[in-house]
């Protein structure tokens, strides 16, 4: 266990750093996928890596769960410096990889049992644990089904069940809900919350802002191999953008040319991302009232509180991708 103690400002609980990265870098050929990032993940929290594909999130995850070597900077897990995550540490991890790499040669329950056997579990204990997990993930009716017969959502749930077979201290989830329908996504989130409530540390990568907002205690925004900002979702919103935003849903050429000047005069900020125009301000209602005078029809606009997506837009200059 790390002796490296940190204070959490809000409730003054002392938590251990369970993973620490310092100037962590990675190059593939001439391409620098990770440009020296540093972060601390505390025991029991849900820590998120938010970013587009290619931001360096998966590279970081692969180093944590032992599919990538650390050759630049340092990575410590459970107080131990890592080059390639050794089996002793992997035995405390649960991994939900980006792709569903379930074993198609085995049935649903065999997938859990074979994987559990890797951790030294066996016999009736293993069977019991597997069945428990199937029930908790709503897969009990599929026990003897082939993996191929499962829908995308059920496969994902099985991957998560598999990651929990060894009662891990840390669960690493690489884009756990990509490709899932909203209902399945909420089910996964619920499961993650219940894991957090029993003290499991969660590490999550996502490019869904809502997901990050819903379940991350703290997160880093990543872009092109760098960390652009770190904090709780609320902190990041408060720090990076003004509290309200008006989205303009109209062609760029019909927007009055002096809009920027006017918005800035009203102490607002204007952000143009691809075809979208966003007006940020302290007092949304006040700016909203002014739109008509500025020659902008209100029906083409949307006023809402700022969220993580706005933070992301501002920091990366790119929108959420689907």
């Amino acid at each position, binding site marked *: 266990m790390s002796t490296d103690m940190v204070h959490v400002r809000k409730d003054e609980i002392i938590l251990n750093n369970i993973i620490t990265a310092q100037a962590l870098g990675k190059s593939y050929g001439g391409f620098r996928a990770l440009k020296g990032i540093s972060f601390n993940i505390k025991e029991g929290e849900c820590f998120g890596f938010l970013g587009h594909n290619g931001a360096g999130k998966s590279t970081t995850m692969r180093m944590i769960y*032992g599919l990538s070597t650390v050759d630049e900077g340092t990575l410590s897990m459970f107080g131990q410096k890592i080059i390639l995550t050794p*089996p002793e540490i992997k035995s405390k991890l649960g991994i939900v990889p980006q792709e569903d790499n379930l074993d198609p040669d085995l049935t649903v329950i065999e997938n859990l049992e*074979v*994987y559990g*056997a*890797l951790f030294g579990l066996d016999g009736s204990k293993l069977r019991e644990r597997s069945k428990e997990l199937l029930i908790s993930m709503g897969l009990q009716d599929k026990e003897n089904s082939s993996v191929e017969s499962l829908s995308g959502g059920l496969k994902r749930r099985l991957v998560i069940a598999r990651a929990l077979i060894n009662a891990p201290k840390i669960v690493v989830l690489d884009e756990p809900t990509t490709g899932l329908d909203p209902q399945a996504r909420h089910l996964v989130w619920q499961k993650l919350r219940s894991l957090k409530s029993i003290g499991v540390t969660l590490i999550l990568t996502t490019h869904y802002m809502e997901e990050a907002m819903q379940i991350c205690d703290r997160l880093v925004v990543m872009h092109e191999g760098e960390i652009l900002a770190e904090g709780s979702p609320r902190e990041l919103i408060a720090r990076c953008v003004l509290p309200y935003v008006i989205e303009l849903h109209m062609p760029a050429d019909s927007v009055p040319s002096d809009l920027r000047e006017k918005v800035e005069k009203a102490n607002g900020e204007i952000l143009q991302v691809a075809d979208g125009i966003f007006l940020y301000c302290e007092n949304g209602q006040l700016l909203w009232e002014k739109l008509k005078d500025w020659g902008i029809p209100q029906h083409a606009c949307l006023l809402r509180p700022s969220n993580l997506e706005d933070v992301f837009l501002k920091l990366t200059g790119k929108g959420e991708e689907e």
Partner: protein
Amino acid sequence: MKGAFKILNRHLKVFARTWQHNLMFNVIEPLLYLSAMGFGLGAFVQQIDGMSYIQFIAPGMVALSSMYSATFECTYGTFVRLHYQKAFQALLAGPVTVKDVVIGEILYATFKSVVFGAVILLVVTALGQIKSIYALLIPLFLILPGILFSTMALCYTGVTSNIDYINYYITLAIMPFFLFGGLYFPVSALPVWVQKANLINPLFHSVEVCRALALGQLSDTLWLHVLTLAVFAIILLPLPIKLMTKKLIS
């Protein structure tokens, strides 16, 4: 090494389900060769080294089946697990290393090569083509070529990027092994340089040992064949671990 047995455990679970199909694939083909060559060609060949033709080739079929099993498991089988099923990546998320995964593959392929070699041995024994009690040692011996053929196959799978390229290995390595390895005619019939080349043909050594045990013709030269196979295996063993590490760990 403990990790490797856990990987083997996964493979054996699959084997328990698929062995019938495997049996077809790995046993029928050598039996086809045995019957076509033994009865067809055998009608024209009176005797080789004082034995009937079918008796001459029967032990070779045991070695052939064994080679096939190990080779196909660690080429096509491994390739599918590595590239299509991503099974190795999944296993590596557990407390195992690439070395465990590779040794697990070798253990499984060796297991299969012994099993399917033994099945052919049973068949040819039932056909009355095995004369010596020493033939009981053949399955034990098959462990050695099993390890070697699976290691060789893993090396090839470790460098190939396309499943179609596995044909090169089968056609350019495995085929010459069994066409010139003394299965169907004594190697003394071949040009001297081919006879010399056979010293690095693992199947040649395997056939020599199987035939000697089947006929009960024990001699000290058998140890030479065994030693050659063992040396090859020991030299090659680290290579697939290195190659698979390169494929799996970035």
